[in-house]
């Protein structure tokens, strides 16, 4: 089967749906290719509330947030392919997928990548010990508990204070499982402040900072974990080990953009954000291929994913309509100070306004963002605190960007200690 579309969106989660709706609004033909049997992505298993406060100005659960966009997709004459897995995308924008009917080939004028992200695993953080049943990522546990009504354990230790870990601590406690504690390698929580308060503090679940799981014990099922305090370099301190009997270890140790298709397409990747390199139109190194949502960089709030995806959808539609000639060759990398982990976009030009998003590497008390074009200070923020758990945004007007040749630097100045 072969079909033509102006814009093909890969992934039907929040990013894909918002991009599709916005593209369709511009009057182009749009298809969403989704591997699951319904739209909504990971939102479907996030049954807690806290979504939508920024975008919809009301507090919604994940499925409610998804439902709003599913309705918009339905109203917008968007072709949705469900249970369809994209296996390849070529730079000339041929999307190859499979489903139960066979091979599906979609020829697109523009593509939006919206595949989301995946969780870091035990292997990635190299926890020594046995390899029994009972070690799983927080997202998998969320799926078991919230969608499948299955209990993945009874006595649970959580490693990592990412938002999913915090949310799952509360969820498992509410469902009658015993959550023995959340352990975090860093000296600060990795999740949003509100989640530490609502999910741990309110449920009396202890958060142990500067402590990691140093060994998994037991076979064929987890029988205990060894936890250990770490020094300021993150190295285990000998003699500070403690054995915690449990039957389950949940991991919430970070998210990584899903890169399979980006790599197959030959996109340049940004080693710092782990997503594709994009310009301020969210266009990747392959013309007409855009990226948004967690496949581009891991967001803190779905509301911000939506806003980003709308931009990607709009730009993809315009590309399909006008085959807009971009001025990538004149784009420059955005420079930033060491305490910033990455920026999105990573390259910019002076042809239009620029919204820069970034995260800090560590908590900063009393910092100030200063933006320079060459040596010239073009913008500065007020002095405030910064946390790695929050995504920061700076909006710059085209006219403020000055001369592109001078470059653009984002410097986060820390109050002198």
């Amino acid at each position, binding site marked *: 089967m072969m079909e033509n579309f102006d814009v093909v969106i890969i992934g039907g989660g929040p990013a894909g749906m918002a991009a599709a709706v916005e593209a369709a609004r511009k009057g182009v033909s749009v298809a969403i290719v989704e591997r699951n049997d319904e739209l909504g992505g990971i939102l479907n298993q996030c049954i807690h509330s806290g979504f939508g406060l920024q975008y919809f100005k009301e507090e919604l659960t994940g499925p409610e947030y998804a439902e709003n966009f599913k309705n918009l997709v339905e109203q917008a004459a968007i072709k949705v392919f469900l*249970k369809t897995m994209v296996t390849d995308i070529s730079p000339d924008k041929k999307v190859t997928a499979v489903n139960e009917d066979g091979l599906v080939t979609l020829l697109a004028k523009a593509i939006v990548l919206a595949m989301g992200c995946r969780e870091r695993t035990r292997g990635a953080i190299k926890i020594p010990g046995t390899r029994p049943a009972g070690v799983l*990522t927080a997202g998998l546990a969320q799926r078991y508990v919230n969608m499948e009504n299955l209990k993945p354990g009874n006595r649970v230790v959580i490693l990592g204070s990412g938002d999913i870990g915090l949310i799952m601590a509360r969820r498992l406690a509410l469902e009658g499982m015993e959550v023995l504690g959340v352990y975090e390698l860093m000296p600060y929580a990795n999740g949003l402040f509100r989640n530490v308060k609502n999910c741990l503090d309110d449920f009396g679940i202890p958060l142990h900072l500067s402590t990691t799981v140093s060994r998994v014990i037991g*076979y064929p099922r987890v029988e205990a974990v060894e936890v250990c305090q770490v020094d300021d370099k993150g190295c285990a301190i000998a003699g500070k080990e403690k054995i915690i009997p449990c039957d389950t270890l949940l991991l919430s140790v970070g998210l990584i953009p899903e890169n399979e298709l980006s790599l197959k397409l030959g996109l340049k990747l940004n080693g710092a954000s782990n997503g594709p390199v994009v310009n301020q139109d969210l266009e990747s190194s392959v013309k007409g291929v855009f990226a948004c949502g967690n496949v581009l960089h891991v967001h803190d709030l779905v509301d911000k994913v939506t806003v980003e995806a709308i931009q990607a959808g709009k730009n993809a539609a315009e590309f399909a309509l006008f085959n807009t000639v971009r001025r990538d060759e004149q784009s420059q990398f955005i420079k930033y100070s060491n305490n910033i982990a990455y920026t999105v976009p990573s390259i910019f030009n002076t042809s239009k306004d620029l919204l820069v998003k970034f995260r800090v590497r560590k908590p900063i008390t009393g910092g100030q963002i200063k933006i320079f074009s060459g040596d010239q200070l073009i913008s500065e923020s007020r002095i405030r605190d910064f946390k790695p758990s929050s995504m920061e945004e700076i909006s710059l007007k085209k006219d403020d960007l000055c001369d592109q040749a001078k470059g653009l630097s984002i410097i986060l100045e820390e109050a002198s200690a």
Partner: protein
Amino acid sequence: MTKYDVIIIGGGITGSAIARELSRYKIKTALLEKGLDIGLGATKGNGGVVHQGYDPVPGSVKAKINAQGAKQYPQLSKELGFEISNPGLFVLGFGEADLKVLEHKLDYGIRNGIKEIRIVDKDTVKDREPHINPNVTHALAVPSTTVVDPFEVALAFAENAVDNGVTVFLGQAVKKIEKQGQDFLVSTETKSYLTRYIVNAAGNHADDVAKLAGIEEYQMQPRHGDLLVFDREMDIKPQTVMFPCPGPDTKGIACIPTIHGNTIVGSTATMMDDKDDVANYKNGIDALIDGVHHILPELDDKKIIRSFAGLRPVVLDHDNDFYIEISKTDSHFIHAAGIQSPGVASAPAIAERVRDLLNDAGLDLPRNLNFNPFRPAPTIFNVLSELEKNMLIKNNQAYGHVVCRCETVTEGEILAAIKGKIPATTVDGVKRRTRAGMGRCQSGFCQYKVLSILAREQQVAIEEILLEDSGSQLIFGKVKG
């Protein structure tokens, strides 16, 4: 009670190869494996290099068997439908002292009959491996070195054996061996088997199994090794199997390009007491990272997706040699013990040797005229052309349902594994056969789907599905009601 001519105890690559070899003859053979799958011991816990035989001392059992076994792999791959690659191998030298060792190994290699083995200079290594440690001065090159997935090979042997009349019993840990006249009565917790001959291929437990039959001819101890698996997508990865200059008991920490495009780094070598301890150790993992950086200093150690460990079965006081002999205590009991490295390469020749020993011990081996050496290769959806994929799905919709997104594994492949000659009954059994869950998300997205398919096909509740061994349930029941 069925009386077998031969019972093989142990379903690793050695036992499976023996089973397949014996299926060429018109005798009644059974294989007993204590695990719920074959290949769960040292077989799945190693790097998969088919060593050509530069390491064993010429004249040793190991030297002969290694070279003979390794030569058979390309042909076996065609017959049995398992994948094989030919990356070649370098043993790297860092300076003149190492060169002496390499020359010594070259001499071994030539005497053990390896073709094309030679010493090459730094530039030859660098041409093939541009990111090699700049301190490398020479290398012993063994271009014929191949790489396989040892589990896949063991499965292929065992399935072909089943096809040719061998019976494989899984979940059968041998608890008792009694003599009944000339015969043995082999008992597990649930069953008993009568047999004329026993082949002991019980890996790290070979001495324990022998002891059950009253045979105490050697003692075994495991040599533990940690291994790491790296992501397929890496800027810098090896094209060649690369070892450092070897030590007395181990070939050292190597980097190995696998048949699936990953890199395996392994392994450490520590003598242990516990024959079942395949945990990973932090000092081992650290040593592996140092070890691979000694070869490829710029390899990105953030790309690790999994660590695992294996135990090489070592017969003590036996010069690290294999122990393949007719028992001195009972001539109907054959040892295929101490199959440490290079056990994968040696398996086909060990099987032939065991066959000869059985014959020497009085077992008649009339040819099985119906022997079919071929086993069809399993379908791997991901490597098919678009046309082939489309055809496959049109014939069977299950191939249009991608279950594992990292490795693009379809429900059709999983069903084939579950319905195979040696069926996958556990989540890890499915993973080893199909690669579902072997990718960088390590089953975060597909574990539930695999569980559901297993439960559906076995017609049991999801709570009963195991990760691997008995007692490894993943789910503890319903959350509500």
